[in-house]
């Protein structure tokens, strides 16, 4: 088999190629950890044709990455990979020597790793990383390689590629980094490209660009294996979809079949769980939310908005003396029982705004009033009295728990401010657990031993403990699998209904925001560029940035696909 | 190099010599300095193997009949290495220089007797004394009395005179690499060797590389590997090995005060003579010294002068042997009848604990420390609780453990050529004229009388008799007891001949040394 090095080889268009580039039959992967064998993947079979995209979707830990890495012989040192067939260009890859694998990697198969932001060596210029792929396979001489690097960067849509090639990942934005990584994966025009979660952790606008680039490669005849937990991403590109869970393929078929007429319950749940403006007011998860007990928030007599922020300004001085205006004149108010969503790209000042609202960061300008009382202008000692009225839930609950404390202690600690007796506190803890749908057994467990969804539930329980009027949720569901996210979102909705608590809900995910919010704030570069109801924002965006944002949302309307 | 050398002399060459301690200056009051300055400076007189004073820079000398003035006649034509001539006036200047702070040890020997030095003519020097001092010439053989160029002393900086004093000696200081070595080069114009030297004219070798190697094992290994030609202070354990390896081994028992234990006779349990005697009786000093010293370090029973000292009293040396029963009886009689659970004797509830500081690493080397541990152990058998306190040199110099209040026992040596050391160590301490070297704090006119008689006795026999009386007195009253003699030892590789230990202090003499093929 010969592979040409030139970009525009007509053979690349696929016509001269055999119908399958990759054939996998009953792939099984197991790991031995401390001498114990654990099966992680079994029964994965598919074929990959030129210009075709096979997508693997599934929740975290379902074995997507392991499957993908097994295809290039890098499942891990402790992995046992077996398959009835594993054919790369009709060669039996099961018998490959390490040397043969090295020849295949990068040349025949390009791999775009998960964790895009850390997949480039932070100490080297990105150009060197891309050139390395060429050098390893003996492509051209030094100067030819550097020309090629620039060419590749340009091809993946990196502006000013000559300059970018000399910069280190740390000097590039997430989108540029992701594209540089793609450039290094396709440097030798491999005809198979495996992209493992290529858009996770990217802003929606950047995600749109990356997907477009993948689409572009597909057009040129590359075969793509796309891995994602995000159905809306998959829906854009995939010809075939494998739905995985617990290491097995639950459902497999063309994109239209799987998305439009899902057979398996899990697939249906997965599809239903994707939040969007269309799902407002509807439960995302099939799991019933526990009956919300009548837990009223303790509202002091106050008619106005729960939280009012006026002209908030926050500046940071960096080590080289430059000043970042992280928040620059932001005003908003959150009414009783209302959900205010804040959306915006990374670095737009959302978290800083949340901290200002919480009184955890000193203001450089503006005022915050909580329940009509001065909140930002008073001493921390004075604030402490009001603190039970406002709570917070973070994206990463784990780091917000003291690692030495078990769930019971964490929750009891949150009740310290209240004047409850020990017995009452204990009852309240049980009640909180019930509220967030956790079994009593978790009380004795440490956060490290809880699943992501459970942790987030504990964090919500803690936030609810002092019966707050307002909960600030900063990316509270961003790290969760879509099905778990659905459960949490449902829980939040139910809690609000039963207790009337207000939410200040921060997310970069427009779908989540539009699903949950009563009103939406769009932030960019520390400013509010647009404010309105979800309908106004999503149907009739006025600001160009908002429009770009909306346009970037992957279209995922299961209804449109049939069913 | 093989030891079966033909013995044929080779002219020139560099002797690499490994010494133990590095002094701060070449000339000074410390024996380590004396060893060095002995190579560079000439004295007026030298001591020969039979302990007889022989000419060096002085051709002859004579004391007046009243003993109060000494006349030295100097060699003619001797030049210092800076080119200035050796004159009586220059020597006289040296005497005054020593007494006014130039050399504290020289001062200790002369102070009280010395009055003035005058040049009668260029080669005739007259020393005037306030009291007769018959052993003056003997004492002048020590390295502290090396004669330096007056011109150099007067015109050069302190630093220069410290680092490279100008004398008329066989070698000249070329370079001092601090922490490493001193390089001495041959004085090509040397004309003034002592009468007991083996040849005349300049030294045979070109240079001496006088290295400082503190660790004894390293010194021995360096000698064995041929990296050095001679080493100082051979550890007792290595003695036999080197001997069988064909190396020349020299041992010089330093005259003067041996390593002796002095009792604090002013405060504490040892004010009672019986307790002192009991301590002496409780020890089998000979066994300890012979074992640790591997037969190389000599046991010394005499508590005031070493066996190499003229006028040594064997009677005093044998005064105490090992007799535990007697020791117990003496302690019982002295009222130390109680016992603690650990077996320490008590009197009126006070345990018989005695504090014994020693200059670790300086005055007492590791062999010495092992010996002191043996003493502690043996004394404990009769109920003494000896607390050994190793004291670093810095604390000693700062005057720690120098008063009767802070210790019960002390140990130390003092090299000398005569039993006149008794005067240094036992002269009573008075308010006007304190004697900090009286480590027993024993101020007794009887003892002082014996010593003063000896110091001024005209003939040797009388003097020795007087000094022996003093030694016996010290032994009888158990003011101090001997332990072992301080040694100066040398090991020389077979390819180097003619190295000898000078007889005043036992330092190596390289003037006659030569290499053989």
């Amino acid at each position, binding site marked *: 088999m010969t592979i040409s090095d030139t970009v525009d080889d007509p053979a690349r268009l696929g016509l001269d190629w055999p119908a399958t580039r990759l054939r996998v039959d009953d792939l099984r992967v197991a790991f031995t950890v401390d001498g114990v064998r654990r099966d992680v993947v079994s029964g994965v079979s598919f074929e990959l044709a030129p210009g075709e995209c096979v997508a693997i979707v599934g929740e975290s830990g379902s074995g997507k990455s392991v499957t993908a890495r097994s295809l290039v012989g890098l499942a891990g040192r402790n992995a046992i990979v077996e398959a009835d067939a594993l054919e790369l260009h009709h060669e039996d890859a099961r018998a490959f020597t390490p040397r043969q694998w090295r020849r295949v*990697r990068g040349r025949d198969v390009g791999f775009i790793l998960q964790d895009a932001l850390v997949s480039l060596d932070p100490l080297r210029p990105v150009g060197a990383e891309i050139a390395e792929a060429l050098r390893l396979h003996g492509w051209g001489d030094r100067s030819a390689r550097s020309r090629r690097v620039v060419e590749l960067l340009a091809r993946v849509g990196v502006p000013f590629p000559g300059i970018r090639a000399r910069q280190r990942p740390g000097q590039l934005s997430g989108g540029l980094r992701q594209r540089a990584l793609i450039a290094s994966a396709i440097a030798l025009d491999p005809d198979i490209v495996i992209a493992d979660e290529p858009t996770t952790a990217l802003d929606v606008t950047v995600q749109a660009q990356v997907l477009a680039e993948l689409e572009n490669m597909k057009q040129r005849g590359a075969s793509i294996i796309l891995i994602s937990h995000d159905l809306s991403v998959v829906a854009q590109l995939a010809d075939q979809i494998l739905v995985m869970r617990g290491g097995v393929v639950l459902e497999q078929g063309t994109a239209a079949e799987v998305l439009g007429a899902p057979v398996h319950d899990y697939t249906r749940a997965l599809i239903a769980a994707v939040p969007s403006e269309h799902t407002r007011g509807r439960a995302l998860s099939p799991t019933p939310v526990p009956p919300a007990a009548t837990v009223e928030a303790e509202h002091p007599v106050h008619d106005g908005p729960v939280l009012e922020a006026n002209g908030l300004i926050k500046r940071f001085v960096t*080590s080289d003396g430059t000043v970042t205006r992280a928040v620059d004149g932001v005003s908003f108010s959150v009414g009783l029982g209302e959900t205010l969503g804040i959306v915006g790209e990374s670095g737009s000042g959302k978290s800083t705004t949340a901290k200002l609202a919480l009184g955890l960061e000193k203001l450089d300008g503006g005022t915050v009033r909580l329940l009509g009382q001065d909140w930002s202008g008073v001493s921390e000692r004075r604030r402490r009295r009001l603190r039970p009225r406002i709570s917070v839930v973070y994206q990463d609950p784990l780091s917000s728990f003291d690692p030495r404390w078990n769930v019971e202690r964490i929750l009891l600690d949150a009740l310290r401010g209240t004047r409850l007796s020990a017995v009452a506190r204990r009852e309240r803890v049980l009640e909180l657990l019930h509220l967030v749908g956790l079994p009593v057994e978790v009380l004795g467990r440490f956060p490290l031993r809880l699943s992501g969804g459970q942790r987030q539930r504990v964090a919500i329980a803690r936030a609810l403990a002092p019966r707050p009027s307002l909960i600030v949720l900063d990316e509270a569901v961003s790290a969760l699998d879509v099905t778990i996210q659905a459960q949490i979102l449902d829980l939040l909705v139910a809690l609000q209904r039963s207790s009337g608590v207000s939410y200040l809900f921060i997310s970069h995910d427009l779908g989540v925001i539009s699903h949950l919010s009563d009103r939406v704030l769009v932030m960019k570069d520390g400013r509010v560029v647009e404010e309105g109801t979800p309908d106004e924002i999503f149907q009739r965006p006025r600001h160009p940035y908002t429009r770009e944002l909306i346009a970037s949302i992957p279209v995922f309307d299961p209804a449109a696909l049939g069913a | 190099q093989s030891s079966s050398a033909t013995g044929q002399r080779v002219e020139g060459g560099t002797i690499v010599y490994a010494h133990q301690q590095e002094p*701060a200056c070449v000339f*000074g009051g410390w024996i380590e300095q004396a060893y060095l300055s002995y190579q560079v400076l000439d004295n007026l007189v030298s001591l020969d193997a039979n302990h007889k004073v022989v000419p060096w820079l002085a051709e002859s000398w004579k004391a007046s009949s009243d003993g109060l003035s000494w006349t030295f006649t100097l060699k003619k034509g001797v030049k210092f290495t800076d080119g200035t001539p050796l004159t009586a006036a220059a020597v006289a200047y040296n005497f005054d220089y020593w007494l006014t702070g130039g050399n504290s040890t020289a001062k200790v020997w002369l102070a009280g007797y010395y009055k003035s030095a005058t040049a009668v003519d260029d080669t005739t020097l007259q020393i005037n004394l306030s009291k007769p001092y018959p052993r003056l010439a003997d004492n002048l053989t020590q390295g502290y009395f090396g004669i330096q160029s007056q011109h150099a002393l007067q015109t050069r900086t302190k630093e220069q005179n410290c680092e490279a004093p100008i004398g008329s000696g066989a070698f000249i200081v070329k370079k001092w690499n601090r*922490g490493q070595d001193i390089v001495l080069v041959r004085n090509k114009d040397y004309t003034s060797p002592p009468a007991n030297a083996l040849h005349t004219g300049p030294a045979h070798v070109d240079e001496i590389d006088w290295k400082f190697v503190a660790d004894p094992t*390293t010194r021995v290994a360096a000698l064995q590997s041929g990296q050095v030609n001679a080493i100082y202070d051979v550890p007792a354990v290595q003695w036999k090995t080197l001997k069988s390896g064909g190396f020349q081994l020299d041992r010089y028992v330093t005259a003067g005060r041996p390593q002796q234990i002095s009792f604090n006779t002013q405060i504490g349990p040892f004010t009672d003579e019986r307790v002192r005697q009991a301590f002496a009786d409780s020890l089998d000093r000979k066994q300890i010294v012979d074992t640790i010293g591997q037969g190389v370090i000599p046991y010394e029973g005499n508590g005031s002068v070493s066996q190499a000292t003229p006028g040594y009293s064997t009677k005093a040396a044998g005064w105490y042997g090992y007799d535990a029963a007697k020791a117990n009886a003496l302690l019982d009689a002295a009222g130390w009848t109680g016992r603690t659970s650990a077996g320490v004797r008590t009197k009126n509830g006070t345990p018989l604990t005695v504090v014994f500081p020693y200059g670790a690493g300086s005055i007492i080397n590791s062999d010495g420390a092992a010996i002191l541990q043996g003493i502690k152990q043996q004394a404990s058998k009769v109920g003494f609780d000896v607390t050994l306190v190793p004291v670093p040199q810095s604390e000693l110099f700062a005057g720690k453990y120098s008063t009767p209040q802070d210790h019960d026992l002390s140990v130390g040596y003092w090299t000398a050529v005569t039993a006149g050391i008794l005067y240094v160590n036992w002269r009573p301490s008075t308010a006007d004229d304190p004697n900090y070297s009286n480590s027993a704090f024993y101020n007794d006119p009887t003892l002082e009388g014996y010593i003063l008689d000896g110091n001024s006795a005209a003939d040797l026999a009388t003097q020795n008799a007087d000094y022996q009386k003093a030694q016996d007195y010290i032994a009888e009253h158990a003011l101090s007891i001997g332990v072992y003699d301080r040694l100066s030892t040398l090991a020389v590789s077979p390819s180097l001949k003619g190295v000898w230990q000078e007889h005043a202090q036992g330092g190596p003499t390289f003037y006659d040394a030569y290499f053989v093929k």
Partner: protein
Amino acid sequence: MTGPAVEPAPQAASALRAARLRAVALTIGRKVVAAVVVLWGAATVAFFAQLALPGDRATVILNIRAGQAQQRTAAELAPINAEYGLQHPVIQQYWDYLRGLVLGDFGTSYQQFRPVTAIIGEQLGATVTLSVTAILFAWVLMVAWVTLTAGRGPRLGALGSLVDVVAAGLPAYWLGIILLLVFALGLRWFPVIGGTGVNGLILPALTLAIPLAGFMSQSTRAEFERALEAPFVISARMRGMSDWGVRLRHVLRHASIPAVTLSGWALGATLSGAVIVESIFSRPGIGSVLVAAVNSQDLPVVVGIVTLVAVFYVVANLLVDVAYTLIDPRLGAS
């Protein structure tokens, strides 16, 4: 293909560079000021430490010169007091001392009658050579050992880290004696008395280097193993890079960062380790001068050396900080 989106324009590159330079200059400037403060503190500590020393200093000086431990009369002490200005109040002595330091005058040795700067200057070369050689050896040993054993499966890895721990725990003086015993006394590969020659440098340098290498490998190994699992390393493998390529080209650089930081500390450690090693191998150097000076209370020398080592240490750490920013540009700005 989507057009170039909202990326920063390239002119930002030069502006960024300038900003970065400014940031680095600012950081270094701040560090220099901090270093000066630290040095002043160190000098002060050293000065007041000598005040706490036991005994009358003039007595000590006289006794050192005489080689005898005695008490001295006031008349004997007076000239010494005058010579060293000991009759002045402490604050004036302190002031004189500080002024001297700034002017490069560390005083005069009690014993040698020579300026302390001369004494130190003479010995410094040997010690610095030893320290630097030791650190170089340590690096070579560490890099070789870690690259060979890290991330090579449980058995080799366990052996690797066991050796690290053992090496790090070896007392330098003991190691030195054993090395001397085996290689100089036994096999006679090296001279017994080191001196300043190249041949005499190897054993002393190894004595300091082996524990240091063990110590550095511990953190390097952890970092190495972490880096081996890092996504960017996996992506290099995905490009077809071999294991050695990955180790040498990517991982080593990341793994060496903690060791670089340790090198500044290591300079201090080897300088003080020299105290021991120089005594074992009979090498000249400030270590042996220091021990001798501590033993004889030659305070100007003690204080001079201690202060000097502090200076070295502070300067070395300053350099390490700079090197650090060079190896890991991420730390420069931001």
